[in-house]
């Protein structure tokens, strides 16, 4: 496996401190491992959040579509709304 190691990275003191203490706890072999696992965890969380939002929007769309008129497009509905604003409809 190709590995890239950046030794001279700069991190804020409070993060360096936390990294050191996590390695000392014995749960991680190196500081790099803590960073790698944390990033993967964050990416997983973001992906899960995106999936949840898509699912929620799909469910709302399904419910909303039951009410919306089938013969009119989104553009036509908004256009009618514009006309209503100018009291034409």
């Amino acid at each position, binding site marked *: 496996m190709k590995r890239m190691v950046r030794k001279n990275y700069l991190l804020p003191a409070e993060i360096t401190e936390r990294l050191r203490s996590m390695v000392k706890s014995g749960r991680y072999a190196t500081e790099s491992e803590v960073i790698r696992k944390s990033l993967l965890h964050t990416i997983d969380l*973001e*992906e899960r*959040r*995106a999936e949840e*939002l*898509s699912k*929620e*929007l*799909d469910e*709302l*769309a399904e*419910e*909303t*579509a039951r*009410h*919306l*008129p089938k013969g*009119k*497009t*989104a*553009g036509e*509905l*908004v*256009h*009618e*709304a*514009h006309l*209503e*604003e*100018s009291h034409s409809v």
Partner: protein
Amino acid sequence: MRYYFDASALVKRFKPEKGQETVRKIIHEASLGAHEIHSIYWAKAEFYVAMRRGNVPQKLAARNLRALGRIILFNPVTSEIVDDASNLTYEFNLHAADAVHLATCTNLGCEAILTDDEHMVGGSVKRHLEKHAVKLINLKETP
């Protein structure tokens, strides 16, 4: 990529028809951090009117907007936007609401605008957008 959604693009997310998949995909990618999506606060009122005209209960319309608000940035209406929009109403013979979307999109420096509104896809509007390096995505022509 920085996108702009007008009110018709927002409504499209909830309407199973041509163009919905494009809107769905961009919103999903944006929630993964790949894009920014902007609109204007005023679009919320337009969205509500369109939902009311479609007999969608108010509570459901509100839930729809809350969900969209988790990923779409609804920018405030400023005097600068209204001034620019006022000029556009004459230049392109637009409804005030369409002109507000056009002005907001260019003022925010968006790279693409999504619309399902036939007034926004005319040749002169398209040229205006091209002048500002904005790609016009006509949802009637997308999956």
